[in-house]
């Protein structure tokens, strides 16, 4: 671009951006924003593994009717230990499947064992791919919502990943943009009292509130409960 054009362009885009911001001000929402269906080397059926059991057929003999309600963390074991969720090692799949002769000749499983016998990693495609300058920490979210607040695992994972338990291969359901992340972090959350700490309890380690430089301003909602915003420092994600 010509140099003399740069400033007018910057100015214009800034104005447009501001207008755009005003016009589309985000509601605090987790509304869906479906991403494209991604082709995977093996069509991994999440619904079979994590989906709800069929109440009529609790032994789950008919795959078309229900899943096995396997905890997400059983396979995605790294999410609670690391900032990246990682992908389960092939060993994990095989660990179970070598003991399930009934499905052994199904095409997907045959494919799986081909990789295993060749000791080759499966080249999965990344579905939830954040830009490189964003550092999202899985571990911390799991610590807070699952371990401290005791919320159901599938619900918590679903905040960002959507209803994976109903999908075949995972597909993005949420926008996962910064505005969307912030929409949650900007909410006034009820501060859950827990354990020995009388009020203001999201203590991870010995912290009174969330990981942040400053203690967030406290407010009380209509019911008189203590509320505070989630951590909001830039550096939390942009290191």
């Amino acid at each position, binding site marked *: *671009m010509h140099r003399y054009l740069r400033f007018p*362009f*910057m*100015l214009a*885009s*800034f104005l*447009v*951006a*501001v207008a*755009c*911001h005003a*016009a*589309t*001000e*985000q509601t605090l929402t987790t509304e869906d*924003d479906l*991403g*494209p269906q*991604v*082709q995977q080397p093996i069509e991994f059926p999440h619904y079979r593994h994590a989906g709800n059991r069929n109440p009529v057929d609790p032994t789950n003999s008919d795959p078309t009717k229900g899943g096995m309600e396997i905890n997400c963390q059983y396979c995605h074991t*790294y999410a609670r*230990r*690391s*900032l*990246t*969720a*990682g*992908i*389960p*090692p*092939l*060993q994990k799949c095989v660990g179970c499947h070598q003991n399930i002769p009934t499905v052994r000749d199904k095409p997907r499983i045959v494919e799986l064992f081909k*990789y*295993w016998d060749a*000791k*080759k*990693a*499966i*080249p*999965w*495609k*990344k*579905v*939830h*791919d*954040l*830009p490189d*300058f964003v550092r999202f920490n899985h571990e911390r979210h799991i610590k807070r919502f699952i371990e401290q607040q005791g919320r159901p695992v599938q619900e918590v994972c679903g905040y960002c990943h959507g209803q994976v338990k109903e999908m075949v291969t995972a597909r*993005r359901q949420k*926008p*996962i*943009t*910064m*505005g*969307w992340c912030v929409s949650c972090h900007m909410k006034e959350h009820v501060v859950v009292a827990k354990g020995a700490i009388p009020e203001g309890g999201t203590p991870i380690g010995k912290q009174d509130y969330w990981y942040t430089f400053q203690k967030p301003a406290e407010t009380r909602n209509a019911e008189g409960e203590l509320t505070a915003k989630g951590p909001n420092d830039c550096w939390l994600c942009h290191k």
Partner: protein
Amino acid sequence: MIDSESTKNLSGQAFDRRDFLKVLGFGGTAVALSGCGNTSIEDGKETVVSYVEAKDYVIPGVAVYFNSTCAQCDAGCSITGKIREGRVLKLEGNPESSINRGKLCGLGQASVQHHYNPDRVREPLLRNGDKGQAISWEKAYELINEKLQGAKGEEVAFITGDVSGHQKVLLTNYIDSLGSKNHFVYEAVAPAVVRAGNLKSYGVEMPRYRIDKAKVVLSFGADFLGTWISPVHFAQQYAAFRKGVDGQRGVLIQAESKMTLTGANADRWLAVRPGTEGILALGIINALGIATGDVAELVKDYDRARVSRDTGVEPSNIDKIAAILRLRSPSLILAGSAAEGYVHGMQNADAINLLNHVLGNVGKTIEAPVSVPFPQLTQTKGNTASLKKLNDDLAAGKYKVLFNIATNPVYTAPASYKYGDSMAKAGFKVAFAHYLDETALQADLVLPLDSEMEDWGTHVPEYLADTAQINIQQPLMERLHANTRGMGDILLTLVKQRKPEEYKAFDDYYGYLRYAMLQNKAALGGSGDDDVFWNDTLSKGIVKLSGASGALSAKAAVEGLKLPQPEEADKQYPLRLIPSVTSNLRDGRHTNQPWIQESPDPLTTIVWDSWVEVHPKKALELGIVEGDIVKVTSKTGSVNVQVYVFPGIHPEAVSIPMGRGHEAMGRYAKGYGVNPFGIMDAVFEGSTGELAMHETRVNIAKTGQRVIVVKDEGPAGGKQMGRRVALSRSTDQVDLSKEV
């Protein structure tokens, strides 16, 4: 509403996620923040590769740490490598090592760039005319075997750098098995004269220096903070020294002809006429007035007036030094480049060491070295005399097979050796190399080595601090390239060709190493289960040994000490060339690591290029300013190089740093700067036969060209040393490549 599509159209260029920051620059901050235009997420583009089988401790995103040893120089600092997802990311010092105590120098930090270097040799290459043809390792070994069949033991020669540990054992066994006695241990920058001087003065080659115990340190060109012997260790001693013994902050005086990093840190820096450091030392003994007997006799002629005249150091400074040395004890006197650089280097070292005897420092700040209980593992120390001998032998056509193990003499030998031509006379030349450097390019067979982060090994550094120790080197990650091999593995295969029976039990070098260490478990301080001991050793990365330390000889070596008068300046070549050793480049073996090129020289802040340092007085006399390209000519040759006007150099000397000016090696090394080895005269130290690196005399002449010196300090193109360069254009208009 502005979305990425319109941005793309507006800016007239393709837009993708990587352009996100550019958009930010275009005032698009609000766009990104408001979340309209949701395209910064890529679905299904990148591949995530999981592990097939993962160890329990492997968690993606969480680092694991392994201990190993830095192989960038011979100081032998211990390192801790941070490894994530099977890749080494960053090195730190290992706090358990008494050498570096958790610290690492810049050169050590850069070694990840050695490992990931794009220019590493990846396949065994056999010469086919001008080209290297990739061959298999089996073929390479066969070929070596075949060539050795046709050569007698004495017709086979090896040139290596410093070697120690089990690699040395294997190498020695291999050389023996060939019936050869020709192992040349060569280091272009080695304290060989200092070692010889120490042996004469103290009875040991390398005592332990205790800078931390000294109250005054007087260093004659020993750059112990930058490049000398074990710089990371000395830097920590120096910190203690500056904090002070008994509350007295240590005083550092540096006497040298070209300011080093250590000189720049000194309380008093004295520019000494090149080569007269010994005279200054004797002058100080004279001024101290405490010497007796034959020492007093020796120094009696070195009165202040004469010493001042010879060395260029003011009489008042000599008095001050004598006064502070008298006042504060113990002190420590160090002989560095003053010894290495001159024909009478040994005499200089003797005179300087004599000062330590006179001041009673021997035994106080100069301690006996710790001895390593395994002499077969100790370091075989390199020098430059060995290269001279090898070169003569090669030129005489003595060798049919030459093994060059990770050294680069074609680059570091003074041009007058014509080492390349000599090397060509050897029938079959094998180079074990990381890069296709100048020497490897002349070889018939190039064998690619693992980086030190892929290889096994043990090292016993020459300079040991508190206790004797064996440093473990272990792979920090898998091999990056399938066809590189560790030096240990290669040696094992080669020695198996000769002595299959003896070595048949070992599949690889790892097995050999483990076996050899376990054999000596008790002596290495281990007990109990073998696996426990071995795992413990690997996790620590260091085996500490209890080694007794010997004694130092208390008697001063005065005999034969006779210093020459400083020479009159040569008419044709009036200046002395000091090829300086800088802390990041050293002898140029790491120049292809871009961080090394990129990190500014500590004194001049120049990057990516060579320079010649000229004293302002000399510059004025010759009418040159910073950035002038001058021709530096010696008897041997000439180079064109940019001038950096620098007060930290003696007016009768100029200095060009070593390490740049490669003609091969890789994209980050080739073609940057000039190589002072190329104009170095072959002059040798009198008693050791070491190359006297400061004895080259040069003249400098303007070429008429001028460039902007690319450096950190000062504004480029702005006022530098009182003058404006490149006045005609503003800095963003200057094309530096055109200027040169």
